[in-house]
C-alpha cells in the first residue's frame, strides 16, 4: 500500500497556549483514519493543518509524496466536509455541487452527469433544484459530502461531520460513509470526539490528548490493549482497581493478575465490564460484593457491584443471565482479562 498522506512532526501553537506538538502520522491509500479525542485535544487543528486552513509553526505535510504545507486550501488536493455543512445558502444543490467543477473548467455535460452521480451516491437523487435551506440537516450534510466526493480529492477530510445530527441519523450516515469509502476507495481522515463512531468507522484510530498522540492502532487493538491509562479511560467502559505488584503478578484482592508490562510500584488494573464474571457468593472464590443496581440496556444489562473492600465494579451480562439476580444480592466477582497501568499521581 502506498503512502497517501504523511504528517511529519507538525507543531502548531495558538496564542492561548492550546495546539499540537510533534504530530506525526502516516495514512496509506484507501485508509480511513480517525482522529479521536476530547474537545481541545488538537484533533481539529491537525485536520485544518492538512486542509490548509492553518499554517503549522513547524513540520511538513506530504500528500502523495508532495509537500503541500506552503499551499493555500484552494491549491491543495484535499477536500473538507465541515461540521456545520457550510453549503452556500444562495445556490441550489446543483450549483453547490457544480461550483468546484466549474472552477476546474469541466464541460457542462460532464458536470451535469457527475452531479447526478454524486447525488445518487449519497441517496439524494433529483434534489438538484432545491436550496440548502429547504433540506434537513442530514440531507444538507449529504450534499456537503457529495460536494467533496465530486472533486475526487487525494485525501477527504471530515471534521465531526455527523455531530449535529441525531443519534439514529448519525448511525445511518456512518454506515453510508463506510459504504461510500469501499465503493470509491478514497483516503479519509475523520475527526470525532465520539469513540463509538471512531470504533465503528475506522481502519485505524489515532487517540489524541493535550496536543499529542496517545495511541494509534486498529480499533480492535485500541479497545483490547489501550496503551495508556488515558486511552483506557477514553475508549469504551473500563473498571479500575488498585493493585500491588507481587512477584511476577499484581495482587488485586484474592487474585494475582498478570503483569505483562513489568510495572513496578502502585498500579491500576483495568477490566472491561464484559470481562467481569459474576458467581454465586457461596462459590467461595472471587471478590465478595453486593449488587447495587441492574440496568437493562437492550440486549445486555449493566450490573454494578459494590465490593466489600470498597469500590464499585460494573459488569455486562446478557439480558437473560440477569433474571435470577436482584439488587442487594451477594455475589462473587472474578475477571477473565485485565490490563495494568502504573498509577500516576494526578490520575
Amino acid at each position, binding site marked *: 500500500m502506498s503512502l497517501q498522506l504523511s504528517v511529519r512532526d507538525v507543531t502548531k501553537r495558538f496564542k492561548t497556549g492550546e495546539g499540537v506538538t510533534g504530530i506525526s502520522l502516516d495514512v496509506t491509500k484507501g485508509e480511513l483514519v480517525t482522529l479521536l479525542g476530547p474537545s481541545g485535544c488538537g484533533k481539529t487543528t491537525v485536520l485544518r493543518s492538512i*486542509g*490548509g*486552513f492553518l499554517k503549522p509553526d513547524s513540520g511538513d505535510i506530504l500528500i502523495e509524496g508532495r509537500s503541500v504545507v506552503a499551499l493555500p486550501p484552494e491549491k491543495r488536493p484535499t477536500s*473538507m466536509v465541515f461540521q456545520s455543512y457550510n453549503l*452556500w445558502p444562495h445556490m441550489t444543490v446543483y450549483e453547490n455541487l457544480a*461550483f468546484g467543477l466549474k472552477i476546474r473548467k469541466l464541460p457542462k455535460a460532464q458536470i451535469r452527469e457527475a452531479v447526478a452521480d454524486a447525488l445518487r451516491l449519497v441517496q439524494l437523487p433529483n434534489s438538484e433544484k432545491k436550496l440548502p435551506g429547504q433540506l434537513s440537516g442530514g440531507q444538507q450534510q449529504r450534499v456537503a459530502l457529495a*460536494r*467533496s466526493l465530486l472533486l475526487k480529492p487525494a485525501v477527504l477530510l471530515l471534521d465531526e461531520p455527523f455531530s449535529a445530527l441525531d443519534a439514529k441519523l448519525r448511525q445511518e450516515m456512518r454506515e453510508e460513509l463506510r459504504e461510500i469509502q469501499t465503493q470509491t476507495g478514497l483516503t479519509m481522515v475523520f475527526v470525532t470526539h465520539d469513540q463509538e463512531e471512531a470504533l465503528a468507522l475506522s481502519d485505524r484510530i489515532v487517540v489524541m490528548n493535550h496536543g499529542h498522540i496517545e495511541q494509534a492502532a486498529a480499533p480492535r487493538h485500541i479497545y483490547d490493549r489501550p496503551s495508556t491509562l488515558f486511552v483506557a479511560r477514553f475508549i469504551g467502559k473500563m473498571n479500575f482497581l488498585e493493585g500491588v505488584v507481587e512477584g511476577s503478578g499484581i495482587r488485586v484482592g484474592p487474585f494475582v493478575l498478570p503483569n505483562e508490562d513489568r510495572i513496578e510500584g502502585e498500579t491500576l488494573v483495568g477490566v472491561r465490564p464484559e470481562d467481569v464474571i459474576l458467581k454465586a457468593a457461596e462459590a467461595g472464590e472471587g471478590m465478595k460484593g453486593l449488587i447495587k443496581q441492574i440496568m437493562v440496556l437492550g440486549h445486555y444489562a449493566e450490573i454494578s457491584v459494590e465490593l466489600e473492600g470498597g469500590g464499585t465494579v460494573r459488569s455486562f451480562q446478557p439480558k437473560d443471565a440477569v433474571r435470577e439476580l436482584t439488587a442487594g444480592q451477594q455475589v462473587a466477582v472474578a475477571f477473565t482479562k485485565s490490563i495494568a497501568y502504573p498509577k500516576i499521581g494526578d490520575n
Partner: protein
Amino acid sequence: MSKGQGRKQAILGLIMVSPSFLLLLIVVVLPIAQSFVVSLREESGGIGLGRYAYLFEDKGMRDNLIFTLRITLVSCALVLAVSYAMALYMRFSDGRLVDWIRRTYMIPLFIPGVIATYGLMNLLGNHGWLSRFLLVFGIELPRIIFDQKGIIIANLWFNIPFATMLLSSAMAGIPASVIESARDVGAGKLAIFFRVIFPLSFKTFLVALTFVFMGVIGSFTAPFLLGPNAPQMLGVSMEQIFGVFREREQAAALAFFTFLLCSALGYFYIRSMAQEEASRS
C-alpha cells in the same frame, strides 16, 4: 386558535399598525395626491398634463433633469464602490488601520449638513485651503465649488458613512465558514467574491443603492450651496419655481415627477425582495 381569538388578534394588529399608517397617510400619501391634483391645473385654466409636458419641452428644465440624473447616477456608483470596498476591507483585514477606519468612518453622520457644506466650500473653493496649498507647487485647482464636482463630493461625504454601515453589517452576516468551504473546493479570490460574497450581500447592496439614490435625487442643501446656477438639480429648481417664479402648479408637477422617479427604483427594490421571499417559501 379559536375564531374569537383570531379576530381579537386581527383587531389588535390593526390597532398597532394604525399610528404609522395614519402618519404615512397624512405626511406622505395625502401631500402626494394633493400635489398631483394641483399639478393638473393648466396655465390656461383647464385640466391636463401640460405642466408635465413643460418639463420635457423646456430646454432649461430638460437640462436640469439630465443634470440631476447624471449626478445621481455618478454619486450612486462612486458611493457604493467606495462603501463596498471599505466594508470588504473592514471585514477581511485586521490591524491598526482597520481599527481606525472602524472607529472613524461614521463621523460625517454626526456633522450637520450645512456645516459640512460650508467646510467643503472653505476647503475646495476658488481661494480655499486646497487651492492655496497647491499654489505653492504651482498647480491650479480646477473649479470644484459651484460645479457638479462639488455636489458629487458633498454627496460622497453625506452618503458613504451610512452605506458603509449597511454593507458592513451585511458582510458581518457572511460566515467565514462558507468562504472556507469555497476555498476548499478551489475557488480563488475573484471567484469567492463574485460567486459567494457579492450574491450573499446583494440584497443589502440594493437597500444601500435605494437609500443613496433617494437621498441624492431629492437633495437640496448641497446642490443649493455648492451647485452651479444652471443647470440645477431638481430640488433647487423646484424651490426656484415655487419661491421665485411663484408657479405653484409647475413646482407640484416637478415634485410629483421626482416622486415617480424614486418609485421606479422602489419598484425594483420591492420586486427583488418579493422574489427572495418566494424562493424561500
